[in-house]
């Protein structure tokens, strides 16, 4: 919920990425909690995959931010309208 608010409200794209990490973390907590509740380790296996995907997403996303910043000198998503027609 807080992560979703962060995605919707903030203008700094780096903070938006951090909010996405928060959302993924919330999912992980839920998976671990159910895994604990149902005495089933599969949930924890999935958490490992989610962490791997989150790491990949963070790396690529930050690479995109760097490339964009080099061209446009901004991290404000309101100014990111290159693809708008």
């Amino acid at each position, binding site marked *: *919920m*807080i*992560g*979703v*608010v*962060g995605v*919707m*409200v*903030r*203008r*700094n794209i*780096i*903070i938006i*990425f*951090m*909010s996405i*990490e*928060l959302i993924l*973390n919330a999912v*992980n*907590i839920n998976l*671990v*909690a159910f*895994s*604990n509740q*149902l*005495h*089933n*380790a*599969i949930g*924890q*296996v999935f*958490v*490992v*995959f989610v*962490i*791997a*995907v*989150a*790491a*990949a*997403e*963070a*790396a*690529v996303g*930050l*690479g*995109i*931010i*760097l*490339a964009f*910043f*080099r061209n446009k*000198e*901004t*991290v*404000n*998503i*309101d*100014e990111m309208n290159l693809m708008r027609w």
Partner: protein
Amino acid sequence: MGEAIAFYVISAFILIFAVLVVTAREAVHSVVFLVIDFLFVAALYALLGAEFLAIIQILVYAGGIVVLYLFVVMLVNLKRPPEAYSDPHRHTKIGFALAVAILVEVGIIGAKGYIAPSPASAAAAALPVTGNTQEVGWLLYTNYLIPFEVASMLLLVAMIGAIVLAKREL
């Protein structure tokens, strides 16, 4: 009893620091709050009997991803903060309303979709308590071997992609 108290305290800290991450003015402060938040999440994992994941959380999130964020925050040295620029078309209230709507929707799904534990899961509950490193590792390398390899391929592709994107010229 003590476990419940610890759970609620850790959860409260997680929520407080999550709010701070979203509301902090400076991106660097946000990153620091994110580290503390991840450490509390790791503590919660340890409390829930997932020691392996607690270690992974500290290593990968607090140690790796957040350092990556810090590097980017410092590389992207802002002359004017993004929040100073105000866009007349920006609708903060709609953003909040959408977030609340999503929360309500998830709550409804959770309330309606709740199924009583089936006999199968009850049988699974009779098994000895899992959650240790050995169990997770066994599952990863037997039942979930192919997804595991796919995840490693995904990480390789992401690494190459990030290098290509962040390189000045090819």
